[in-house]
């Protein structure tokens, strides 16, 4: 039997932690329904007015679309460059490998603002106009390490025997990649893509410095919260949470047996 310890105590503590995690989310959801001009007490009564406001707010809707666009681009970039990086780190000893590994990991531990100023000075030097694409490149660089570490860990787990067997049987590089490497890392890659998407969607620090005329959702929320926080802010955040639950559950259901939770158990 795996379970040990005082079960009621463990259960109570775990539920307390979940309560802590959900208290602000519930507050956020509750006050999205508040019939009041600003977020907070007193609670004047239920209304769906603020959800209507969200769907009438063109600027807000555009920024949601911008966030999805940027996040999708970040996911594409981190697969295009992160996957080869993980394969390179797993298979080969190339000069500067140790340094490369550290550089790749650096954006995880660096404040986004520092990554942001470094890239901003680069863009200014090469006269690149700030736009959604500059955000995409910045976030892509910062978040690529997620794909690299996840896929690298999986490759190390799998080992090399299958790849070598396939190569000995005459498979070329592309065939090895398509029928051995990719199927092996698929669930790790999918998990990393999901994480990269969710972090990019809510990214503030790198975006803050690299944003041009078009704003992402967090930038729009930031300016809304600094001016006057109407329950509209809560309404849009609630919608994002509900959408994400649908997406996560749908994604897990779709890839049954390859989901994150079942992988770890």
């Amino acid at each position, binding site marked *: 039997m795996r379970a040990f*310890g005082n079960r009621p105590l*463990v259960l109570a503590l775990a539920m307390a932690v979940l309560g*802590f*995690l959900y208290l602000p989310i519930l507050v956020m959801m509750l*006050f999205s329904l508040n019939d009041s001009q600003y977020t907070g007490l007193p609670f004047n009564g239920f209304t769906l007015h603020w959800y209507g406001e969200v769907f009438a707010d063109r600027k807000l809707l555009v920024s949601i679309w911008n966030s999805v666009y940027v996040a999708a681009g970040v996911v594409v970039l981190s697969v295009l460059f992160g996957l080869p990086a993980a394969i390179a780190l797993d298979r*080969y000893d190339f000069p500067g490998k140790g340094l490369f590994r550290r550089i790749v990991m650096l954006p995880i531990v660096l404040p986004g603002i520092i990554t942001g100023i470094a890239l901003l000075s680069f863009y200014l030097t090469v006269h690149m106009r700030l736009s959604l694409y500059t955000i995409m490149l910045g976030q892509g660089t910062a978040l690529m390490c997620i794909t690299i570490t996840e896929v690298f860990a999986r490759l190390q787990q799998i080992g090399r025997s299958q790849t070598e067997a396939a190569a000995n049987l005459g498979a070329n590089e592309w065939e090895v990649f398509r029928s051995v490497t990719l199927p092996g890392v698929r669930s790790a890659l999918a998990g990393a893509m999901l994480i990269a998407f969710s972090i990019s969607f809510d990214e*503030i620090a790198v975006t803050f410095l690299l944003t041009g005329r078009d704003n992402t959702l967090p930038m729009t929320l930031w300016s809304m919260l600094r001016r006057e926080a109407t329950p509209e802010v809560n309404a849009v955040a609630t919608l994002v*949470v509900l959408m994400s639950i649908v997406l996560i559950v749908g994604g897990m259901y779709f890839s049954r047996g390859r989901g994150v939770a079942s992988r770890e158990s």
Partner: protein
Amino acid sequence: MESVASTVLSAGARETAVRSARRLDRRRMLFWVLPPVAWFSVFMLIPYALLLYTSLGKVEDMRFIPGLSLDNFIRVFTVDPYLGVILKSARIGLMTAVFSAVVAYPLAFFLAFHVRSSRFKFLIYLLVIVPWWASYLVKAYAWKTILGSGGILNVALQKVGLTDEPVRIFLYNEFSVVMTLTYIFTPFAVLSIYAQLERIPTSLIEAARNLGAGGWMIFLRIILPISVPGVVAGSIITFSLAFGDFVAPVLVGGPESVMVSNVVINLLGVAFDWPLAAAIGLVIITLGLLLISASGWLEEKTQTRF
């Protein structure tokens, strides 16, 4: 491949075959290695080199003048408030890392040892990652609605009769900053600790129980030591994220809870002192590289192999 080749081919042919195989291998290696190396060179190494170039110059009358002086680095370490702010950010990051680990542990423990059905496990796992998707800004703002002087906590305290006046110490100070950051980053710590606890074989616990160990004994002597790498990995991330945060100080912090990212933003936007901002950036990049090396060493050192 070489062993097969050596039995079939003559010595001379073998040599050419090996050489051509090596050349092929090299080409394949470049195919995988070059694109990511090129990417990180363009988007990280060149920008960092530019930061170095900027940090060695100075600004006069809003214009950048290139130079080769270490003045800006000396300013980071000697002029108030830069070093102090870096240290304070590190302190806030450390507190956040410790509190997140402490808060996360029971939930990770519950998930790893007390949830048997995979359906329920999936549900709890989902409950841990869903708060991630709620906008960070709105979550931080929700704490304002809870802790503020007209907030839910104060109204509740007054209703119960514990206090007559709103308590103001809940918000706009270091406590609320650390609390909010702990709240935001706890899911990272849960996942990282859980991943490590999940690796512990059930047989290990059964063996300990058969030898007469009680619950606390098993926890202190087996589970806790094995979980250290997970706690370390999670703490590195929560520390770093909290260290570089600039939202919580603005939304729920007081005038004295300015952190290093806020200072850098002010240097860029208000003071227009790019060289000093670049110098601070390089100091932090150096600290970051040290942290990565230290964490790699620490995780290696504390990892248990089964």
